[in-house]
């Protein structure tokens, strides 16, 4: 720990200098506070948000909880569909060939561009938001699951065949474990997509959620609130991603060399 300290000290010092310069820059009129709200503003904004709330009565915690629930609903739903479907598609070359263009196409459509259409389908309520998150997560997850199952090192399959494995047993004992690292990577990527979509999805038809908070803050020139919302989304994304990494370490201790491609 002690030895590590000198390594993290320089970036911390640099950050502190930047923040102080920022604060002073605003105080002496070089930076406009609504463009670059200083740390003191952000801190007082945070206190306001966690006590009175913004809009009044809706605290930062309930914004956060609402967003979390939406993301997790869409994310879990997408995973629950994409994993079995991807396993089936990946197991049959024909299915993969047939569906590949569709998967690539749907994955490439910017999720938020579907917003107007989805509102027409599901209205501007909860379902629309969860659907959009689910859509974004689903295609990313699906293409990773397919690739994981499909491109198992052929020499492993050959080795297993020499030991008399075939069919379902070959799949369970070799193809699936070999695909797991890729499936995990897909789950991490899908989560990132979920958080990218959420802010946009919450910008309409709701006053609750971090995306709504960010938009509402804009209307009132409360840039510090926008920054707080942004920071919280970042922290949540970071925490869940770290959780997934820990889970992967636990479940796939053999795949340690994936550290390099983790991001």
């Amino acid at each position, binding site marked *: 720990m002690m030895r590590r300290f000198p390594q993290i000290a320089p970036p911390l010092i640099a950050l502190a200098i930047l923040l102080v310069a920022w604060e002073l820059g605003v105080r002496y009129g070089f930076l406009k506070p609504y463009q670059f709200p200083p740390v003191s503003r952000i801190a007082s904004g945070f206190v306001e948000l966690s006590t009175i709330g913004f809009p009044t009565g809706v605290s930062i915690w309930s914004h956060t909880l609402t967003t979390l629930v939406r993301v997790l609903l869409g994310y879990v739903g997408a995973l629950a569909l994409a994993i079995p479907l991807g396993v089936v598609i990946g197991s049959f070359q024909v299915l993969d060939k047939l569906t590949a263009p569709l998967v690539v196409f749907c994955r490439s459509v910017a999720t938020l561009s579907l917003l107007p259409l989805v509102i027409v389908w599901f209205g501007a309520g909860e379902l629309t938001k969860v659907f959009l998150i689910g859509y974004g997560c689903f295609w990313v997850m699906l293409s990773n699951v397919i690739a994981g199952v499909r491109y198992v090192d052929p020499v*492993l399959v*050959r080795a*297993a*065949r*020499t*030991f008399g494995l075939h069919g379902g047993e070959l799949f369970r004992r*070799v193809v699936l474990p070999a695909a797991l690292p890729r499936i995990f990577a897909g789950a991490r990527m899908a989560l990132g997509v979920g958080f990218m979509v959420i802010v946009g999805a919450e910008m309409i038809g709701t006053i609750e959620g971090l995306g709504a908070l960010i938009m509402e803050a804009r209307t009132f020139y409360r840039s510090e609130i926008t920054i707080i919302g942004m920071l919280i989304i970042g922290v949540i994304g970071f925490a869940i991603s770290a959780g997934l990494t820990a889970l992967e370490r636990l479940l796939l*201790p*053999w795949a*340690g060399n994936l550290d390099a491609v983790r991001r």
Partner: protein
Amino acid sequence: MLDHDNLARCALRRSEAPVAKRTTSPFLQFIAINSVGKTFAARTGSSISVLDCVDLTIAENEFVSFVGRSGCGKTTLLNIIAGLEDATQGQITIAGRPVTGPGQGQGVVFQQHALFPWLTAVDNVAFGFRKSGLNKTDRRQKAMDLLTLVGLEAAASKYPREMSGGMQQRVSIARALALDPQILLMDEPFGALDELTRIELQHELLRIWEAQRKTVVFVTHSINEALMLSDRIVLLAPNPGRIKRVFDVDLPRPRSRTEPRFNALYEEIWDELST
């Protein structure tokens, strides 16, 4: 599949350029490779011929080595014997039965590391006992015995990524032995080992081969290694892969590199390989 054109063409080839005397005794035809050819579809749409008119019989308990330049089709031929790939022409029989897939007594040590990365060393070896009918504890116990045999009992709980290339190769050998195969197909199994370990494992392999009466088909780039181990050395030539010559290694075991006959054979094979 009997392709008469192919058989006739290969018979003609044999009479023009004999590589070895052919045996007709069924005892000496444990593995019979009959006019085997293999073509791969190339990406350009054309096809490349990788093996052509390979004729060879291997007797039960024989130790045969394949040597030849890189890319001459040794691995491909081994895979066909293993039943992992189909010959496009000709046929291979083991004890008279055509090879239609793995599981006819062939155990394989692959050229690339083919250990399951999600299993520890001992579990990789225990995987080889999967179809043996043993329960889990017995499988692990026997796997430990095999790891001890290859000198890796201390690495039993390591994952492949935590082992050196040579260690992984030894685990692969132990895993192939777990199957207790009649035929051991080994593709450059000692390529990644240091000289000392290699010589130790060569001795170990000979000991296993003599004690358990296995038939071994062994691919190597080292003429020395082939001479130390084999009853016969099959020299393959590339483009398309075919048998150029078969050498009988009529040296008593244990062999020594200092024997004049050893060196004479070495020179002979070297000359044939390099022309």
